[in-house]
């Protein structure tokens, strides 16, 4: 592959207590590309992307084997601060989860916790990230309103803006459109295509068309294993594994 791997998972195994949730995963997340993760429910998609920003270690009794690197550096190395990794690898969740604070405060939060204290810089970045998330023109008059008053689609774009504000290098999306209507979904998809110019993106989705529309690479997970990983076009037109073909054509799962 000509593309440059921004993140690399090598022989990753993951356990929730006795449950073996990921088995020997090898997968590259390429720079300035969109990588889609597909597969039936419970196959370990969320588990996998939550490893990429060390979110799973907040869950007790979990074990990780193998190696995950960011720009060639092992992110689980004891010398690496998980807070640093989470700043560089942002995440947008399945359910929009704005804080019960104002729109402004929601976005400013990430900057403040990362030590940005200049009011001017914070204001600039809030506006910039709202613009990047294609939300600015809809809410510019009510930036001090409580974020919970926004619609679901707007909340999700706010969460994307919150993620962009800390200027991550990689953005992980875990089924970002699962709770949204088609119009909001389309907006988020356009946004993802827009964002890949500047960011490296991984997205979990249940929606085959969405994976086909937005991604450059696709990985198909089944029961904790990575069955096939290839260019999206190949996965959807000429998969090499029968199970991938069955899944993408909707004959199973």
């Amino acid at each position, binding site marked *: 592959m000509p593309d440059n791997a921004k993140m690399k998972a090598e022989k990753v195994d993951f356990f929730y207590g006795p449950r073996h949730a990921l088995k020997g995963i090898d997968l590259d997340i390429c720079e300035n590309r969109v990588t889609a993760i597909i597969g039936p429910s419970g196959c370990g998609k969320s588990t996998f992307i939550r490893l990429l*920003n060390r*979110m799973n270690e*907040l869950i*007790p009794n979990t074990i990780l084997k193998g190696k995950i690197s960011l720009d060639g550096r092992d992110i689980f190395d004891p010398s690496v601060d998980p*807070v*640093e990794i*989470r*700043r560089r690898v*942002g*995440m947008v*969740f399945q*359910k929009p*989860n*704005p*804080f*019960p*604070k104002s729109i402004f405060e929601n976005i400013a*939060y*990430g900057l*403040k*916790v*990362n030590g940005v204290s200049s009011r001017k810089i914070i204001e600039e970045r809030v506006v910039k990230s709202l613009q990047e998330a294609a939300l600015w023109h809809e809410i510019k008059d009510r930036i001090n309103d409580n974020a*919970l008053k926004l619609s679901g689609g707007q909340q999700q774009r706010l*969460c994307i803006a*919150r*993620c962009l*504000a*800390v200027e991550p290098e990689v953005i992980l999306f875990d089924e970002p459109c699962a709770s949204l209507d088609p119009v909001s979904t389309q907006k988020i998809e356009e946004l993802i295509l827009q964002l890949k110019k500047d960011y490296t993106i991984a997205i979990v989705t249940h929606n085959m068309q969405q994976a086909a529309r937005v991604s450059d690479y696709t990985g198909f997970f089944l029961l904790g294993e990575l069955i096939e990983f290839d260019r999206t076009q190949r996965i959807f037109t000429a998969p090499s594994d029968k199970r991938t073909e069955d899944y993408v054509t909707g004959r199973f799962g």
Partner: protein
Amino acid sequence: MARVKEKAIRWTLAALAFSSLIFLVGIIIVLFKEGLPIFKAVRPGDFIFGKFWYPTYDPPEFGIFPLIMASMWVTLGALCVCVPLGVGSALYLNEIAGFKQRSLLKPAVEVLASIPSVVYGFFGMVVVAPFVQNLLKLDTGLCALTASIILGVMATPTVCSIAEDALNCVPNSFREASFAVGANRWQTLTQVVIPAAGSGISTAVILGISRAIGETMTVLMVAGGSAVIPKSFLDPVRPMTSAIAAEMGEAPVGGLHYHSLFAIALILFIVTFVFNIIAELVSRKFRIRLGQSG
């Protein structure tokens, strides 16, 4: 026949449920009926702000200001103990402790709540009061400070368990969102979790206050009992509850002293009632704000 039986069960349960309402109304009626007559002899302003509580002198004086101040001092002191202890342990239990620690500490807090207040009082008299007396070189260890410490420990389980419920109600997605932008544990706790649980935690504190104000046996045993306006935490004091408990036995039924004790009870009732209503309103607002119903 089955119909009749069902109806009978229904009515019995309804009667049981309504009985608590009847008791409440009954208590309120008695408090007003026995408490109000004192105001025929003493003006309400003199009663509440009068500086001297000499109910058995001739002529008697019925100023309960020293008792009110004693209650306030002791309650305030108890708050200084139970808020850090209760909220702190709730934070630790819910946000930091692992499974093993939680399963040890939570029952410990619950047991603390189930100890009878006379045992707390006894412990205060025999252990805490002498300790305070020796430490601060006082004439007596039975004082507002000792009462505050014991009351604070007694109110801690109430504060802790309500604050813990509030923290539990904060959706995990808030914590994840905070971690995902690179916040650390401390920032997540102080800037996301505590504000989100804020009014639930206030509810806990308010209910802790009303627990402390209403407590009787312990303060009777450890507060010292002197009905003088306290000048410091080291003075012996007589809070409203202990005045009622200590004097009711010797006050002739139907006399002014008797009525004045009922009037104190009435004031106490109103105060705790107001605190509980505030707590309820605050916690309702909290539920609405986090988008839950019921």
